[in-house]
């Protein structure tokens, strides 16, 4: 077994996350998809870090985590306020972009 497996795993997780973003209408679920994608990316970073034997990968992953946390906070807050005003957490209901 080699480190490639980790990469394959992260690829699979990433794909699943992205598809979730595409297919789920519930904002919260879609958002979780995003999180999954981020983590998949982290996994890749860490794996390569180990592959190349330096810690930068981990550091970057760390920063990703921090940023992700911030992003989650904001994102969820947005979802909540949308839910408050529109009474629904469905993405498709918020299609103000159209006209």
């Amino acid at each position: 077994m080699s480190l490639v497996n980790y990469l394959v795993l992260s690829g699979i997780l990433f794909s699943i996350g992205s598809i979730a973003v595409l297919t789920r209408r519930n904002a919260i679920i879609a958002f979780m998809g995003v999180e999954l994608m981020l983590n998949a990316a982290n996994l890749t970073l860490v794996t390569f870090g180990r592959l190349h034997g330096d810690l930068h990968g981990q550091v970057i992953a760390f920063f990703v985590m921090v940023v992700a946390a911030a992003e989650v906070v904001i994102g969820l807050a947005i979802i909540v306020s949308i839910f408050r005003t529109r009474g629904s957490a469905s993405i498709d209901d918020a299609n103000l972009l159209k006209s």
Partner: protein
Amino acid sequence: MDTLNLAWLLVAIPLVSSAVLLLLGRGSDAWGHWLGVLASAASAVLAIVILVQLLGLGADDRTANVHLFDWIPAGDLTVSAGLLVDPLSVTFAILITFVGTLIHIYAVAYMSHDVDRRRFFAYLNLFIAAMLVLVLADSYALLFLGWEGVGLASYLLIGFWNQNTEYAVAAKKAFVMNRVGDMGMLVAMMAMFATFGAVDFDTVFGAADGAGEGAMTLIGLMLVLAACGKSAQFPLQAWLGDAMAGPTPVSALIHAATMVTAGVYLIVRSGPIFEQTPTAQLVAAIVGAVTLLFGAIVGCAKDDIKKVLAASTMSQIGYMMLAAGLGPIGYAFAIFHLITHGFFKAGMFLGAGSVMHGMGDEVNMRGFGNLSRYMKVTWITFMAGWLAIIGIPPFSGFWSKDKIIESAFVGEGWQPWVFGTVALVGAGITAFYMSRLFFMTFHGKARWNDGKNDLPGPERTPHESPALMTVPMIVLAIGAIGLGGLLTIGDSFVTWLEPVTGHVEHHEPVLPIPVIMVTTIVLVLLGAGLAWRQYAASAVPVAPPTGSVLTRAARADLYQDAVNEGVFMRPGQHLTRTLVYTDTAVVDGAVNGLGSGTLGWGERLRRLQNGFVRSYAAVMLIGVIGALVVVLASRV
């Protein structure tokens, strides 16, 4: 030369008066016409003063250039507004102002019933001013100013009663056909500038003999074209007949005495150019000859008294053109005939006007007859004009026309024979139709309804016109009788013009002069007699007979209008309609099509933007994958 420097007043006075009349508007209705008469008379007096002054000088310094100001100082081309006072221009100035003043006086009475009399006099003054500019100009550019100015005045006066659409159309026709001629003038000036770098008489004439014949021929021909337009010569003669729509004084002044003769003036003035180009001279002569016959033939068939006079004008100017086309030997006589013609033709027009005045504006000669009993003065004066135009000695027409016929016979080759014969025949025909007019109007049985006889038409009460109208007629009649002889004594007029036309020693015609003279008179008498037999001795049908093919053709002005319409007007109208359609449908259509096409595409693309974040995300994902594939594929 102090008064010569005042020459500009000749133009200024009538111009100012016209401006005043136009600007003051109704305010000057009461006295406006008298102001007009005064202005014209003033410049007439001034003209005479200048004439006297010139006569006082030696023949060689009878030419004065009066520089006024730089008109167009445009670097390479500099045109100055200056007056050229010399025998020729002064002669014209006299004719214009003198005859003009008479006609002004006549018009005071003739137009007395018209609400717009003031405007009429404003236009008349404008015409006088423009015509004087034309003849006094010292450069072609300035001459062109007058040239177009008289065109404008004629346009305004022909269309004076423009509430009648036909009159308005006639006016427009006159102006546009003149413009066609003016194109020639413009091209001539362009060629002059290209050749000599200037358009003033001195430079052009000075360098004329040095220039190549090609350019000279172009200039000459173009000048002839211009002359044709202005002087109603073939093929641009069609407008003159319709121009009779204007009030009769206008016909007398503009379309008989002065403006229409401007073409002749132009050619005589441009003598030095024509010297260099026999071709152009020949063309001018041919045009003259053709028009001479053309007018004569048309004149024989018309029943409208003014149209007959118009036709005869055309024909007489044909004589002048012919003479002018003959070169220096003809110049003097052309002008001579022009002067005499100015007098007797104006007289006859005024007579016609007086007849119409008495007959309730009737113009159809078949509705006249035996008027000599009712309007004696008109009759006598008209008779003077008649005898003059048909050339009975010693009336003035005889002297001038006979000289032209003689000089037409001068030269070698075929030309003298052709031109001479044409001139002779023309004289005969002229005698016929003018006599026809005279007899139909004043003699024979009355063909109008005087209330007692049971003739059709409204009741007429012919009467003599007021003194304001008859006096000018009398004066002109005296001119018609005596002027020719007076000026012939010792060739005084020819010598007087020599500074301009140059001295020419006497040439022998191909036929001995007495023969020509006798033939002429015989032909004239023949024509007159014929007319007498047909229109005075025998009764004239009130309804015009069908007549021969030639007659019908002549009644239709030899189908000149038909030709114009067929060749220029109709295709032109079609062309404009097509172009208007093309402009909106094709040129503009292309633009609009582009616009609507863009809109359509926008509509289609708009559908992609459905506003669902998820589908945007999907598109993004696909795009990313595609991009990656491309990148990686390129790496492989």
